[in-house]
């Protein structure tokens, strides 16, 4: 997407940007500089690592791989040490020459749920560039005190007039398009442009039945405050963190299946602090790190490692015992080509604009 004009543009703006780069660039090389999602900003996760290693972890939050890569493009090589990224997007980073192969023998791959190692994405040309740290489902989140839980076992209920105006849709095109594909019996890994008209029909019906389309905070707030009773695309990442305050919030994996989301950690090849970066990845993948990440204040999710030190209450909220069944019925995020991705995003824009 970035043209060859981008580097020259950056050079042109360099003089003016030097001062600001000095301000916005990550701090000293002795620190660890991490491009993260909000769940990694929780002091409960970072502080034990900082204390144990006597360093500071400087974090910058971003949403969406495109935004993350844009930050990297605007930084100096070596500014960043590690990055949290959608597992399916790791090949994009490898293609851009950003990531360093990880030493598999020094990471606890044997502890991971086999279904979430995502070798098809985390390995490129036989080399491992990312390790899955957390996963979950984009499925149906709902308030079980207001919605018939049996209805939530089928995606067709999302189009039912009975729930008109009681539904929010999570504003992220890939999982929702994936769910629409599942509802018409398509596999997310086999989607082509020819499937888009049928998917569009489902999306437009879903939108017509919904009250709002919201990003993470908006959709979570809508479900938590009772503005809506159902969140399409929701899952444990919405309901688990709110379980104590509102135990009625629940999620289902309907008969059609759910979309498996998975986030990974990757190390930058230009990192000046690779030893510490590896230590950080090892810490996050340790039983304690996994439990802290899974129950982060920003959002909960399943730890990728079966060895995560979760207590019984946390395991119950995350429905750990049901994971084998959920994983069996889940399909990965659609991983479209650049061309199909553009068409999917246009379809999403059309859905948002539909009345």
């Amino acid at each position: 997407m970035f043209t060859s004009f981008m580097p020259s543009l950056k050079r042109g703006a360099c003089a003016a940007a030097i001062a600001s780069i000095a301000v916005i660039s990550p701090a000293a090389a002795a620190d660890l500089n991490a491009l993260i999602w909000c769940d990694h900003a929780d002091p409960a996760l970072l502080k034990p690592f900082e204390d144990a290693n006597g360093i500071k972890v400087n974090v910058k939050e971003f949403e969406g791989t495109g935004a993350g890569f844009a930050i990297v493009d605007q930084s100096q090589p070596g500014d960043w040490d590690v990055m949290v990224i959608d597992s399916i997007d790791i090949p994009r980073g490898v293609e851009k020459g950003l990531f360093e192969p990880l030493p598999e023998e020094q990471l606890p791959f044997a502890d991971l749920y086999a279904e979430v190692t995502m070798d098809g994405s985390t390995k490129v040309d036989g080399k491992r560039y990312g390790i899955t740290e957390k996963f979950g489902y984009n499925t149906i989140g709902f308030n079980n005190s207001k919605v018939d839980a049996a209805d939530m076992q089928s995606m067709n209920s999302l189009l039912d007039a009975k729930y008109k105006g009681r539904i929010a849709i999570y504003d992220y095109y890939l999982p929702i398009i994936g769910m629409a594909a599942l509802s018409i019996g398509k596999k997310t890994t086999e989607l082509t442009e020819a499937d888009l008209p049928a998917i569009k029909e489902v999306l437009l019906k879903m939108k017509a039945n919904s009250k709002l389309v919201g990003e993470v905070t908006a959709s979570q707030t809508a479900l938590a405050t009772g503005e809506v009773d159902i969140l399409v695309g929701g899952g444990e990442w919405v309901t688990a963190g709110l379980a104590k305050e509102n135990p009625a919030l629940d999620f289902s994996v309907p008969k059609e299946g759910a979309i498996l989301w998975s986030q990974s950690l990757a190390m930058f090849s230009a990192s000046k602090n690779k030893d510490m970066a590896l230590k950080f990845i090892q810490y996050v993948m340790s039983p304690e790190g996994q439990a802290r990440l899974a129950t982060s204040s920003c959002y909960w999710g399943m730890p990728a490692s079966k060895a995560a030190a979760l207590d019984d209450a946390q395991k119950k909220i995350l429905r750990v015992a049901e994971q084998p069944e959920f994983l069996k019925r889940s399909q990965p995020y659609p991983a479209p080509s650049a061309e199909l991705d553009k068409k999917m995003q246009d379809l999403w824009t059309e859905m948002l604009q539909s009345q």
Partner: protein
Amino acid sequence: MLVTPALLWTLLFFVAPFVAMALLSLNFQAEGGMTVANYSQFFTNPSYYRAMVNSLQVTGMVTLISVLLAYPFAWILAEQIPPRLQRLALLLAILPFWTSYVVRSYSWLLVLAQNGVVNDALLRTGLVTEPLQLANTRAATIIGFVHFFVMLLTLTIFASLKQLNPSYRKAAADLGAGPIRSFLYVILPLTLPGVVVGAFLTFVLAIGDYITPQILGGNNELLMPQLIMMQIGRRGDFPLASALALILMAVVTIAYIACARWLKIERT
């Protein structure tokens, strides 16, 4: 010589980024070659130009409602409030500016929610039997905007009213004009520059605002700033985002030219 710093500032922080954005929007390649594909995408894709239509409709409504509310408010402040209390009244009027824009929008979301204050009051008084859908609508976006901009307009109109020479009103009365005629033919035309300045500022600030429609509109329709943000956040498509931003800027420029000309006519 004295204007050099200002000139440099403008070159560095306006002209240079503007040119860079324009080149980016054309997918300019260092080795040559440009395309207007990003612009044609806007004009040929209904979902894209619909965002501009939505923006103009929302901004137009916001500007109109804000003017209609702000004028009487400013009139009361200027004419009915004793001079010694006007400072306090102005202070109260600008209080909304002191709170975070995001917090204010989220507050409105809670007020307008299904279980919010407004629906609660409507249900208790029996005016409705079912909660109304107020949040996550275009109306909510407009309410959020109006709450903010009516104060801005009040300030500009208040300033115009205060600058008005009281003898104009007396002269109109001496010549037999009643209060309504005096207002329509003397006061209103003389205070229109303040109205137009405030309306223009409202238009510019509202049409470029991302936060309010994103929080209060429920993403049930896209406005231009949301469409631009989608290109950056989701696609990392800076060329298309630049093209859309320049189209938005062109609309603002047209609005400016319209207002500038109008004001000029009024002043001659």
